[in-house]
């Protein structure tokens, strides 16, 4: 066009509807910017701080997590639940971007339910992990951040898979995810064995998360504990992380005054007399208070 030539104006390359709107599912960034760099510099700040863990043992799978949702140095929610049930026999611990985790878990729930209806039986945990990783790997490079451990009981017994949003899915016996995971791994690796009793497993999980919340700034709040058994998943308890850590630090004492300092237990664990977890490396020190953690509800 003549006017175009006179003004030396170049028409934009793209034709079609308004070019300033992004394609469906795409990011709206200024023209000429590289997507990754732009997001890194100006994108939404994502929440990654957490401690979640899961391990598999003879009597099922334990999933435990802290409850602090942080956004940088701001605690967005001190009592969020990071363990999401998928169906009766499957739980997922979530870490990374909370929104991504919740969304993808809803999609996973839908897909598993459809498969269950079509096939007449629930898909295995391996199948669920594969499905989730394949779904997310399509969005690789678009800054999805979901690091999750799928804990379930299927036809092959207790099963545990780690799935990451770049498409990784790994089978294993112990996984810990999040900024507090190194601290949790230390505790877990020290005391884990496949033939633990249920009370030992509960104590180990609580101990690991409590230690992680003590050292990691982005983990804290309370400690949620879930157990997946053959009959389905069960919400065991929620304990305040600070109180839990203090209790763990106390030397185990069999005298009544040690027990009197505890609040009355509110947790739903069935108490087994004399059945305790070994938390410290003191030999022969088996204290009854280990299995009855004070189950104060979380505050602040």
């Amino acid at each position, binding site marked *: 066009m003549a006017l175009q030539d006179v003004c030396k104006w170049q028409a934009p390359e793209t034709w079609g509807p308004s070019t300033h709107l992004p394609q469906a599912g795409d990011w709206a960034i200024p023209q000429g910017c590289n997507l990754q760099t732009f997001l890194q510099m100006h994108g939404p700040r994502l929440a990654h701080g957490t401690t979640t863990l899961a391990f598999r043992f003879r009597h099922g799978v334990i999933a435990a997590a802290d409850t602090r949702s942080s956004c940088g140095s701001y605690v967005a929610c001190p009592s969020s639940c990071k363990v999401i049930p998928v169906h009766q026999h499957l739980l997922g611990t979530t870490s990374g971007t909370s929104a991504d985790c919740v969304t993808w878990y809803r999609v996973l729930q839908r897909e598993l339910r459809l498969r269950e209806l079509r*096939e007449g039986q629930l898909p*295995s945990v*391996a*199948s669920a*992990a*594969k*499905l989730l990783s394949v779904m997310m790997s399509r969005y690789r490079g678009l800054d999805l951040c979901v690091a999750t451990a799928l804990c379930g009981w299927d036809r092959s017994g207790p099963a545990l898979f780690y799935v990451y949003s770049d498409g990784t899915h790994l089978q294993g016996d112990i996984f810990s995810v999040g900024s507090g995971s190194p601290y949790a791994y230390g505790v877990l690796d020290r005391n884990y064995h496949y033939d633990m009793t249920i009370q030992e497993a509960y104590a180990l999980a609580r101990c690991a998360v409590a230690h992680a919340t003590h050292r990691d700034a982005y983990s804290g709040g309370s400690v949620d504990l879930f157990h997946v058994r053959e009959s389905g998943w069960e919400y065991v308890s929620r304990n305040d992380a600070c109180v839990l850590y203090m209790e763990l630090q106390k030397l185990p004492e069999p005298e009544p005054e040690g027990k009197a300092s505890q609040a009355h237990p509110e947790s739903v664990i069935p108490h087994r007399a004399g059945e305790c977890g070994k938390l410290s490396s003191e030999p022969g020190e088996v204290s009854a208070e280990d299995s009855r953690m004070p189950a104060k509800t979380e505050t602040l």
Partner: protein
Amino acid sequence: MASRYDRAITVFSPDGHLFQVEYAQEAVKKGSTAVGIRGTNIVVLGVEKKSVAKLQDERTVRKICALDDHVCMAFAGLTADARVVINRARVECQSHKLTVEDPVTVEYITRFIATLKQKYTQSNGRRPFGISALIVGFDDDGIPRLYQTDPSGTYHAWKANAIGRSAKTVREFLEKNYTEDAIANDNEAIKLAIRALLEMFSAKEIELQVTEIEKEKEEAEKKKSKKNA
């Protein structure tokens, strides 16, 4: 215009029949017989071995095919159609393993084959597959299963069934003789399959494939070929 020849070949008749599908079932009735029997721990597939021309290499004529380690099928009808269906089923078995991390169940692969056949009764310019299939195998739970599909795309589970030439007579024989005693153990089930086929044919024509379960090794099946004297 090409679209004139692109209409669906399978259309309804005024009285509600799909004639192409029924003609396909006639083609199946011309194929050599196959019989399937489900025992307690065993599934047996027996097929009539058609006499081959003198110069033909009879080892290449295979009517019983493995779809996966734990699933087999036999067919009656157009061999070329069967080859296509079997290939698609084999691919689906592996695809399923890849996406779902579990081997197919016998019901799943039967449903897949049946859905495939049904699609061809409702597509432009295509004719139905001219085969019926007997699909056998074991699932994770170790229970033997036998399914039958037909050109219309329906499938059912059976305790014992026959397809192909003289299927009706063989089925009647099975109805009379399929008892709890008859399938009491593996050998009895095999004998029942042989007797069912012997009703119609001479012994030389039977090629029997026996599928057994080995519970100790937790394998799904073992295939044996037996030639009857």
